[in-house]
């Protein structure tokens, strides 16, 4: 077993070794956490001092959480799709680890998107839930996340679960644009007359800047959580393997 990680050996194939991956995570994680805290500090300050939107007033500040959460919800499914290809096509050993831990994190951000969208909707549209195209698509995405998590928890063997989840993830990825298109169609058929414009015809720079900072901060947070969770999952599988060995030995095989 290699105890040293050489600086150049960061090819994907080397990362396939879980032990080497763990060493990499231990080194990178503190920097990621620092970067995360830093960008959140900048982003939150900018959000606090952002001007009020001419249409929505100060509630535009909710957008600084709502939009990054929506972006992460999509990004996470994209990440899981790449991981799914890694499992099915290239059989990368860490691919299903990456996919498994991404699902709850993505579901969390999807949930946050729904909640903040609802809280944004109440002062804007007068009701906590509104079936506009965006919120509805995200609700369907949330259902898909929950189904995926349920699938992971139903199959005991991690590698079989990984393959099943990979197929569902890819089918879901194909379906996401179809669902978005369908919901947009459905919404334009049924939508009441008023159309909601985000912050006016274009987003002013004074609102765009905090939005981008918060988006960056949330993305770094996602990557931090994801790497840390991957580390946990590798450890969990080690525990499982050791317990299996222990049970096997106890049988006197």
């Amino acid at each position, binding site marked *: 077993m290699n105890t040293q990680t050489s600086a150049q050996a960061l090819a994907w194939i080397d990362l396939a070794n879980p032990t080497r991956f763990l060493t990499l995570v231990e080194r990178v994680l503190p920097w990621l956490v620092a970067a995360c805290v830093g960008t959140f500090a900048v982003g939150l300050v900018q959000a606090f001092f952002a001007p009020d939107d001419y249409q929505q007033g100060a509630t535009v500040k*909710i957008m600084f959480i709502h939009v990054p959460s929506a972006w992460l919800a999509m990004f996470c499914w994209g990440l899981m799709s790449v991981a799914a290809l890694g499992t099915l096509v290239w059989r990368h050993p860490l691919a299903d680890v990456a996919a498994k831990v991404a699902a709850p994190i993505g579901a969390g951000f999807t949930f946050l998107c729904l*909640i903040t969208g609802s809280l944004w909707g109440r002062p804007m549209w007068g009701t906590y839930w509104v079936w506009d195209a965006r919120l509805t698509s995200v609700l369907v995405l949330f259902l898909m996340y929950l189904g995926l998590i349920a699938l992971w928890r139903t199959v005991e063997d991690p*590698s079989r679960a990984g393959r099943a989840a990979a197929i569902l993830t890819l089918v879901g990825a194909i379906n996401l644009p179809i669902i978005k298109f369908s919901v947009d169609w459905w919404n334009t058929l049924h939508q009441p007359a008023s159309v909601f414009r985000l912050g006016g015809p274009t987003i002013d720079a004074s609102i765009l800047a905090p939005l981008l900072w918060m988006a960056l901060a949330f993305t770094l947070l996602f990557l931090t959580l994801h790497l840390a969770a991957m580390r946990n999952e590798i450890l969990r599988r080690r525990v499982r393997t050791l317990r299996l060995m222990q049970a096997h030995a106890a049988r006197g095989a």
Partner: protein
Amino acid sequence: MTLGPHADFIIVAYGMAAIVVGALIAWVLFDYGAQKRLLADLEARGIGRRGSETKPTADTRSA
């Protein structure tokens, strides 16, 4: 600076964000601690990764 007439919604939204993010962080940290503890426990019982009692298993297998 005032948050306008809908200040409550803004505060609750940021509060929910803190709760969700906090829950995710807590999950990661708690799980880490739990797995480390389990590994240490198994290690203490002499079931090392090279298996002193049983045949060794390649550590690149993830399952």
